[in-house]
């Protein structure tokens, strides 16, 4: 039986190798923020005729609506046009000018977000994350112990950082659905950790004298291994189906979930559990 706890430094290093470049990227390049955060319009249109992307771009630029970001082709003849925030009249002008210049336009969606919303969204997200984490620690202290709560929350912080980092490195667009994805990952990650800690809790009751804590945790990990893998596989089935077959509007949301769920699987076993052992051992050394 492979001993996970013996090699726990390796797991920490692997985590850091993923998280540190991510943090560096966040600090230097930040995120590719969608209009939910920056404000602006996102207009998605389906054109009846085959049109070059430059033609669409020139229309937007001539009207003076262009934002820093470019125009993207999202389907065969679907275009995502990002502009500065447009008034309702300007939106209508954009559509009618497009119809004049490039033929029939089928408006798929038109999202307009004022700059204030982005600030509120960010603040709400940060509050939500803090409150969720605090409530989870409270619940875990009540049902388990405080140190397990701290370890579990550290594990989910790990997952959040992994997802944030990868999204920053790959410069994938971040929108309000991404915030929901992060909070879902938090829920999933803690779910996974709790199933393992539940086993640890049970094994602690029948702990033999002299059995090292590392070994006890390691046994618990192996006992829950089949379940951990099967659950992750089941969830990934659904997420992959959504990613490959679902609509474009939820692609980034689902991608964040896929990364987060995978990271949650890893962190429950190889971050949260070892960290709890670490916290317990520290307590022994300081004699508290």
């Amino acid at each position, binding site marked *: 039986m492979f001993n996970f706890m013996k090699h726990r430094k390796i797991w920490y290093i692997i985590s850091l190798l993923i998280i540190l470049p991510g943090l560096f990227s966040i600090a230097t390049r930040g995120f590719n923020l969608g209009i939910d955060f920056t404000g602006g319009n996102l207009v998605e249109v389906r054109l009846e005729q085959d049109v070059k992307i430059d033609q669409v771009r020139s229309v937007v630029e001539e009207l003076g609506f262009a934002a820093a970001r470019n125009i993207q082709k999202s389907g065969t003849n679907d275009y995502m046009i990002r502009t500065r925030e447009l008034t309702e009249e300007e939106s209508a002008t954009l559509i009618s000018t497009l119809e004049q210049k490039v033929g029939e336009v089928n408006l798929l969606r038109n999202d307009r977000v004022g700059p204030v919303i982005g600030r509120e969204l960010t603040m709400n997200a940060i509050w939500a994350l803090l409150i969720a984490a605090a409530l989870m620690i409270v619940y875990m202290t009540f049902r388990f112990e405080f140190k397990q709560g701290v370890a579990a929350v550290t594990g989910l912080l790990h997952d959040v950082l992994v997802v944030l980092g990868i999204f920053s490195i790959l410069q994938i667009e971040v929108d309000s659905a991404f915030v929901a994805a992060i909070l879902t990952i938090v829920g999933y990650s803690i779910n996974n950790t709790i199933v393992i800690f539940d086993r640890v809790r049970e094994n602690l009751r029948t702990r033999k004298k002299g059995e090292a804590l590392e070994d006890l945790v390691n046994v618990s990990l192996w006992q829950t291994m089949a*379940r951990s893998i099967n659950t992750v596989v089941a969830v990934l089935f659904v997420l992959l189906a959504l990613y*490959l077959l679902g609509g474009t509007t939820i692609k980034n949301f689902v991608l964040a979930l896929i990364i987060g769920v995978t990271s949650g699987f890893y962190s429950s076993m190889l971050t949260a559990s070892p960290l709890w052992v670490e916290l317990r051992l520290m307590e022994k050394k300081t004699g508290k």
Partner: protein
Amino acid sequence: MRWSKLLTMAAIILVIAALGITAAVPLPIFKDVTWLPWGKDIILGLDLQGGVHVVLEAKDTPNAEVNDESMKRAQAVLERRINETGVAEPVIQRQGDRRIIVELAGIDDPEKAVIDLIQPAYLEFKNELGQTIITGADLKDALEARDPNTGQVEVDLTFTSEGTRKFAQATMANVDKPIGIYLDEQLLQNPVVSEPITNGQARITGYENLEEAHTIAILLRSGALPVQLDVMEKRTVGPQLGKDSLDRSINAGIVGIVAILVFMLVYYRIPGLIADLALIFYALVVLAIFIGIHATMTLPGIAGFLLSLGIAVDANVIIFERIKEELRTGKSIRSAIDSGFKRGFVAVFDANVTTLIGAAVLYFFGTSLIRGFAVTLSIGILVSMFTAITMTRWMLHLAAASNSVKDPRYYGA
């Protein structure tokens, strides 16, 4: 082999399979049964059928200050305007001190709906000196019409008794002088009064078509907005994209669910079959609840539902793994099922409660679409805990009692 138990088992499989099929697919033999499939009764969110979500914020202007009273009146005006257009189940909500959220689903031209919604529509009649004689407040009715003789499109105005009196006075005082008709400070018409009008009737002309006159008439009937409303956030989804999203999510959902069902069957065999039945039963219960509480299904809502399927599988997996362990220690199948349940459920419970905490926070802080996700996820979690302890347990016992499968290997051990 106990045939009665086996028959019960077979009956359950048939019932669940039949329910599952009728809920999902319209069957040709039941063409006339309108409540089949169930999916039809689920209210689709605006992201799945096209529509618009707007957050409006009131701004202080020199003429009008924003306060609770003016916000209430603004909301009432918006409600009247929307009702006039006949949109089904609109959402009109106050948010905070000076915001109003409006959601309209299933409209063909969401862009135009927003423009019509926030038009101030302030009607005034002014005399030559620019003094206001009559305002929209004196108006009783406004109807679009077509002049039978000239074919010209017009809006016919009927004034209140107070308005009739004012209008009569004004026309008397202004014979041979123009009276300007202004909509939102914009001159529409500047007719010259030929004789006093005492019957309280007036008309505005100069529209391109009947549809334009219709919109103006609605705006005039439903009154002026007491404050200026600006669009803070607007999300429109065209009908085309809505349909695309719905079709795609259904496809993705079917593929994902079938993959889970096959996986469970292959990996856990007998318990896998039972888990599959429990899972279909679970999905039906969740669907029934969505229909029962008139939940609106959105794209994130579907994602939440599918994720909750994963969590429901997890509940079964945790319990089955426990049962396997108990079997390995040499227990009989039936006592292994009992103690496996008892031990497994503690983990399921604690894990799900923490996820529920996360969902509750998401609901509290989220916007409407994210809330849909939180609601479906929460319903899913609660139902999965219920089906895991009732349905799965009952069927496992039934399978064990039927004595059809004695070899623990078929339970994965």
